[in-house]
């Protein structure tokens, strides 16, 4: 493609000074490759020559694009991780899941009420939960998934929202659930209901918004906009900084 700096790959190649130097063997969908120690799964796969189209998003653990299922040599247990966040291990046997065909309910948040049955009525399948906990074990973010589904089932919207907060919607839970629950969509609904109906509203915002709509600050800002450049600089320099004064830096 283009002549860009191959920054990330080149930094990985100078690993000889690292404590452990050398290479690990990993298996990408069954094919064996040698990759330098100290790389994330994502960078290791690229090192081996793959260019990601799917299975690569933010590269920093926020978007859930790079869900990876792997097994370690001699082990039978399947593990779940994000490729961009997990270091390769010797004998790692892996595959990536770029997409989960999960159904999502369509709803109008403005028409819903934050009642005990609301989430159940939108996602009735949560009643099929058998508490097998497979979802929790599949989560790369250490979320207690079963618990937030249980709380959604009980109508405890607040708790479901809290417990599911760190969810990056990678879909591993939904893929593995024997009851075909779509946990991350349920969590999203819980959080929206909580944020909209259960969290207290900001009085300050209400007041300030009305002031803005009434044009209270228009004149001040117009003045700043048309002011002599030196005067603006003066104004800027003479601002009192709240953080410095409070010692809250």
């Amino acid at each position, binding site marked *: 493609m283009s002549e860009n700096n191959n920054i990330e790959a080149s930094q990985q190649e100078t690993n000889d000074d690292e404590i452990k130097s050398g290479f690990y063997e990993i298996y990408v969908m069954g094919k064996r490759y040698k990759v330098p120690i100290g790389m994330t799964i994502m960078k290791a796969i690229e090192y081996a020559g793959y260019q990601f189209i799917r299975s690569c998003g933010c590269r920093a653990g926020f978007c859930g694009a790079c869900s990876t299922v792997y097994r370690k040599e001699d082990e039978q247990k399947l593990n779940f991780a994000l490729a961009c966040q997990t270091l390769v291990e010797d004998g790692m046997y892996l595959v990536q899941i770029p997409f989960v065909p999960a159904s999502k309910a369509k709803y109008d948040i403005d028409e819903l009420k934050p009642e005990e049955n609301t989430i159940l009525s939108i996602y009735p399948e949560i009643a099929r*939960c*058998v*508490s*097998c*906990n497979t979802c*929790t074990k599949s989560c790369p973010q250490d979320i207690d998934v079963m*618990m937030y589904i*249980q709380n959604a089932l009980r109508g405890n919207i607040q708790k479901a929202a809290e417990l599911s907060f760190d969810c990056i919607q990678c879909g591993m839970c939904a893929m593995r659930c*024997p009851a075909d629950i779509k946990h991350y969509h349920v969590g999203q609904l819980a959080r929206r209901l909580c944020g909209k109906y259960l969290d207290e509203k900001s009085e300050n915002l209400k007041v300030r918004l009305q002031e803005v709509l009434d044009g209270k600050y228009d004149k001040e800002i117009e003045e700043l906009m048309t002011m002599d450049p030196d005067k603006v600089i003066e104004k800027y320099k003479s601002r009192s900084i709240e953080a410095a004064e409070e010692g809250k830096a």
Partner: protein
Amino acid sequence: MAITEALGHKLIEMEKWNCCGVVASLTSDDLMHHLASIRNLIHVQDEGEDKVVVLCDMCTNTLKQTNLRVTESQDDLETLNEFMDKENEYKGNVTVIHFLEFLRDEVGFDVIKKKVKRPLKGLRIMPYYGCMLLRPAEVAIDDPEEPRILADLIKALGGEVVDTPYKIECCGSYHTIDQKDVTSKRAGKISTFGVDRGADCIMLSCPLCKYNLDTRGKEAESLIDGYHQIPVFYYTQLIALALGLDMEPLDLEGHAVDPIKILKERGIV
């Protein structure tokens, strides 16, 4: 909790629990549906306790059946423990009792009688047991054919017992969801026996039975000519009234069939 305290005992609320799944596995090779129950028993273990008092009849039944299953079959217990590889192992040492058993066996109905401040004098109560506390026999908390635990409780509280042959018939259970007329007619049949024998109200222990007899029972009034549903009390409501505890948490206004009128008539409130 208030009742327990008033009787001089202490119960600790569980920190972590999950839905019991309702209705334990009915086939011998389905272990999956025992998971939810076992998980709760592990939670009890994790909190360092070995006995759990359960408020719901259906939960009691499910937890007891599962507990029995795994204590009788070491293989099943091992399989379940191995599946739950991230959780602590269930050792099989937790005892499951229903709140009624707690009141009968650990507190004692005579103790309750002594602490009654407002005896339910003149209130004619029909005890209704339903299914879950009595069947199957291996987990029953009383005689499955001739239970007396609710009747004994009523007497301890100062009320009059109205015995009926339908006290152990099923209320219709989950048919309330998609065949609610079935449960309404059941409520009608069950309550009519009581009404014919002069009962003022019904006392029961299962939340689902209460819903079916109270809410569906009220709906039966439009299905059966001339039928009137009598009020339905949850046993803890009547205990609280008799012990003179705060009435607010009882939510007597929330019933489908108004219970306050009869309580007033009998001079209890």
